């Protein structure tokens, strides 16, 4: 496994997710990243793939997820591709901050974490009907 790049392809299921996460963490063990940068890479992976597994899958067929990890000196780039239902994460609005338990929304924070961790992200729906989401994170030194 290259310390600087990794390509994963897995079914959009909980088992596929867990196995892919294990492979990702193995690659990150060999990359020279600060603990904070590493945590953010894992967090972005967690939030994007969880969204695909939970919302992108369709009842009549399996969704396949591809993830590419590229570790450079200054940045880490994660590229996610899936053939699930169209979803542009840029359209999602972060939940407003709640000041009490009673008024707090239960969920909806995943993409907020991705935006907070990333220095750049981009989305497109490809001509072969895939969602393609590219997230760039700065390497803290």
């Amino acid at each position, binding site marked *: 496994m290259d310390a600087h790049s990794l390509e994963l392809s897995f079914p959009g299921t909980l088992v596929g997710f867990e196995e892919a996460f294990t492979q990702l963490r193995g690659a990150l063990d060999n990359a020279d990243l600060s603990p904070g940068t590493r*945590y953010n890479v894992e967090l972005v992976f967690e939030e994007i793939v969880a969204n695909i597994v939970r919302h992108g899958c369709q009842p009549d067929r399996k969704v396949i997820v591809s993830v590419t990890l590229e570790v450079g000196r200054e940045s880490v780039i994660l590229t996610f591709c899936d053939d699930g239902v169209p979803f542009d994460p840029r359209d999602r609005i972060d939940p407003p901050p709640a000041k*009490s*338990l009673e008024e707090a929304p239960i969920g909806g*924070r995943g993409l907020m974490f991705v935006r907070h961790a990333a220095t750049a992200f981009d989305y497109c729906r490809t001509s072969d009907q895939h969602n393609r989401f590219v997230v760039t994170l700065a390497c803290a030194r």
Partner: protein
Amino acid sequence: MKLEIAEPVDGVVNVALIGRLDTPGVDKIETKLTASLVPRGARAIVDLSQVEFAGSLAIRMFITIAKALARNNGKLVLYAPQPLLQQVFETASLNDIVPIRADAATAAALARG
């Protein structure tokens, strides 16, 4: 992900979570944790010192359990998150929703309160 639930001490249940609160980890423990605390309206404190990772699904789980406990005259307090988890919690302003304290003693005092 492991879940350890101790017998109540002075009316407070101490729960220890060990491992990763990613999607697979939350899936492994959420049902049992909810069933252990909510029906009895527990006043519970959750030790996060051995949790290496948490994302939005973990936060969702804590808020869901805290809301259910509040309806049942119970309470949920988290304590001792590792620094990187604490940063995630601050991004979500979680402490405004579910209290987070530095240690078991202050968490238990708040849960009892």
